């Protein structure tokens, strides 16, 4: 039994409608309680900003493709090298750091829950192995279904229940959290070196379109009663003029769920491009944000680009090949049989570069133009737009017009005619930032019920105390203080235990893997379905019995069982 009291905390807890109240937070055995005894360990927050632990609803930190990013980039490891000390392992890497480095850096910024954005089911074991080497955050994995043969066949047959049954079986088997679609249909086409340009193209050999896949998956997701909605990386990422495809996709989405969105569209910055080629490239954040504002069933995340070196990695194999042809630097590709693909290339976003400057503007425009902060979440699609350590700078950019203008003055001069950023006056407040970095993310992921993203009684005691005195700082003017304050917590508390303090890692830690196990009726159990098992044993290169992730790969874990309607 352990007790902790965070005293004199200036709390912003949007889910519980607390917006700047000085209070004490009592913690017992990892959960927030009404009160604790006199022997509790006391952390005096001294009136500093105290938020629920940060939640990243879309990041790439663990698994095959992330590790390949590390494997192919010893030059990236030359940055971020720190010596082993105390409980802390040696670290290396900047854009694709080691698991420990990721975990420590997120912890120092007050983040306690992460969603790995893309896990290929066939390689799920790898993701879970890395989860157990990411000690200071609770982890979830979105599972890729964009090129899943069984799903596409069921969609072609119009059998949505079968789609749900396949998704349900797979999530249970690979201990996944939610449904991820990355360039649906496009990754299958890439198997033969082709791509799909938008939602109405037909996937070669399978007779379905991305639109059909997306619509079916949204329905299947609700049939399975998954906590999170379908999580979509739209077709046609990164190409001039793709905003039309993005809006077309959004318009497909029905409103099916009262408690959360029906579609989470990720890194929308990369999907809000105008122009007909790179020469006429421009921002279309406005029509995209307008669409989002009109469709409450959609939540997006920014996918903000920040200047500097990084590594792009995505299941979107064909897109990465196009990037490779543009940059002619190194390129890795990894197609996963019957399921998905992936690609990795290093990039350098430069202020001098017009396209890069426009990309940087678009992300900020989206965040400022989407009226409801619960529906545009703060991400960089780590590390695609930038490594997550840039989040504090993004927060400052959103809170300060002055900072945006100062930065805008340093980017490519021709950017001005292609974007609307300089015209946007909005400056976010503390509460909006708290929504965009934890409360909104937890709600979108459907994990508030398991005590994430808020500080109410019974919530997991994941708490971030920042060295920021809300009343004493003017974020619009003193943006450097915002950057510094959000870079390093005074305390990060994970499950009731202080894990970081003033830039120091205090414990080795042990995370929880959160996964979803939909309860499906026996007649929809795919493990006995002859067609499904036949497909497995004929075309996969592993036997069906060797495919599911064994329990021993999940050390500490939280299984969310859902009552599926099939």
């Amino acid at each position: 039994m352990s007790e902790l009291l965070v005293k004199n905390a200036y709390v912003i807890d949007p889910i519980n409608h607390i917006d700047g109240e000085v209070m004490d937070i009592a913690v017992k055995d990892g959960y927030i309680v009404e009160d604790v005894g006199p022997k509790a360990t006391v952390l005096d927050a001294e009136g500093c900003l105290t938020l629920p632990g940060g939640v990243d609803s879309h990041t790439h930190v663990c698994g095959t493709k992330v590790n390949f990013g590390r494997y192919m980039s010893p030059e990236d490891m030359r940055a971020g090298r720190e010596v082993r000390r105390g409980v802390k392992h040696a670290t290396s890497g900047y854009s694709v750091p080691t698991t420990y480095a990721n975990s420590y850096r997120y912890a120092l910024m007050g983040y306690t829950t992460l969603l790995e954005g893309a896990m290929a089911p066939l390689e799920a074991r790898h993701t879970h192995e890395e989860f157990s080497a990411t000690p200071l955050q609770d982890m979830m994995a979105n599972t890729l279904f964009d090129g899943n043969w069984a799903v596409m066949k069921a969609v072609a047959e119009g059998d949505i229940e079968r789609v749900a049954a396949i998704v349900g079986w797979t999530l249970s088997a690979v201990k996944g959290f939610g449904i991820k679609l990355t360039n649906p249909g496009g990754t299958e086409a890439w198997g033969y070196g082709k791509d799909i340009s938008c939602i109405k193209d037909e996937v070669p050999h399978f007779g379905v379109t991305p639109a059909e896949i997306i619509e079916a998956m949204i329905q299947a997701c609700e049939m399975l009663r998954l906590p999170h909605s379908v999580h979509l990386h739209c077709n046609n990422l990164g190409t001039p003029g793709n905003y039309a495809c993005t809006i077309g996709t959004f318009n497909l989405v029905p409103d099916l769920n009262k408690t959360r969105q029906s579609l989470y569209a990720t890194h929308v910055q990369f999907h809000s491009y105008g122009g007909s080629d790179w020469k006429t490239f421009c921002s279309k954040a406005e029509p995209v944000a307008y669409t989002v504002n009109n469709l409450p069933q959609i939540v997006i995340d920014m996918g903000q680009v920040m200047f500097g070196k990084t590594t792009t990695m995505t299941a979107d194999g064909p897109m990465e090949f196009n990037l490779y042809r543009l940059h002619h630097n190194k390129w890795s590709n990894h197609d996963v049989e019957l399921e998905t693909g992936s690609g990795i290339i290093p990039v350098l976003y430069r202020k001098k570069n017009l396209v890069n400057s426009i990309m940087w503007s678009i992300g900020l425009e989206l965040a400022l133009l989407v009226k409801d902060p619960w529906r545009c979440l703060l991400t960089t699609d780590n590390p695609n737009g930038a490594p997550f350590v840039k989040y504090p700078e993004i927060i400052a950019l959103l809170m300060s017009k002055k900072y945006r203008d100062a930065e805008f003055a340093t980017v490519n001069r021709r950017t001005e005619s292609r974007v609307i950023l300089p015209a946007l006056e909005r400056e976010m407040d503390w509460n909006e930032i708290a929504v965009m970095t934890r409360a909104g993310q937890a709600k979108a992921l459907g994990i508030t019920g398991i005590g994430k993203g808020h500080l109410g009684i019974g919530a997991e005691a994941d708490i971030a105390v920042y060295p920021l005195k809300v009343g004493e700082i003017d974020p619009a003017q003193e943006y450097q203080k915002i950057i510094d304050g959000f870079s390093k917590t005074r305390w990060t508390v994970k499950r009731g235990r202080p894990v970081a303090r003033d830039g120091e890692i205090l414990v080795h830690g042990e995370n929880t893997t959160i996964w979803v196990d939909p309860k499906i009726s026996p007649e929809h159990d795919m493990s006995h379905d002859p067609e499904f098992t036949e497909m497995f044993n004929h075309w996969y290169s592993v036997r069906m019995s060797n495919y599911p992730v064994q329990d021993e790969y999940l050390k500490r874990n939280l299984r969310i069982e859902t009552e599926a309607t099939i």
Partner: protein
Amino acid sequence: MMRIVLTMKERTNPHIPIEAEKINPAFLMWGTDDLTVWEGNKERRLDEIFEVEVEGTATSVNEVEVVLRGDTSRVKRIGEYMDGGRITVEGNVGMHCGNFMAAGTIEVMGDAGGWFAREMQGGAIICHGDVGHYCAAGYRGEKKGMRGGKVEVFGNAGDFTAEHLFGGEVVVHGNCGDMPGVDMQGGYLTIHGDCSRPCGNMTKGKCTVLGCVSEMPPTFKKEGEVEGPDGLPLTHFTGDVANRGKGNLLVRHYQYLE
């Protein structure tokens, strides 16, 4: 002027490498008391490993001369990030001598280990003996290698000399091993002796081989005869065509692997 003489002491196990990036005028000019080097996994005070003699003082790094004596063949990283002054190694030197060096002069009287002048930026570095592999080369995974300065080797150089060369000048008076100038993207490489398979995959820059090239890469386009230093007739190639390259390779004699 300030002169610092470091003489290697007798060691229990002379095979354990020593990492000594602090042997750099920029550090030594402020005193040697707090400086440490690593002998394997043990951090040692500089004076545990070397006899240290200091004469004079300096107000700028350029007034510092460092001399190394004794068996320094296992001492790595001497002059790493050097940005001025002078280092003279009287004997042999270990790996990574002059890594990232930006200015100043390093002169090695004996032989040098691998990665001599790796990723050099500027200044001058001379080896009177032979150098190991990867002289004036890049680092694993990094696209650009040496970017500036001058490397001069009076003996022979090993394999992968000037790999990923991007700028600056490399002169080898003896022979080079296999694949000098491989993946080079700029700069000048001159080999007075022989070598095999130069400049595979080169995109830019100029490499001159005054001796004989064996296993000449088959993907260079012959442009004609040109006159080289001392009126020597050289054959001028451009390539590497396999990589859309626009580099220049000038050779005295060559032979394909047919």
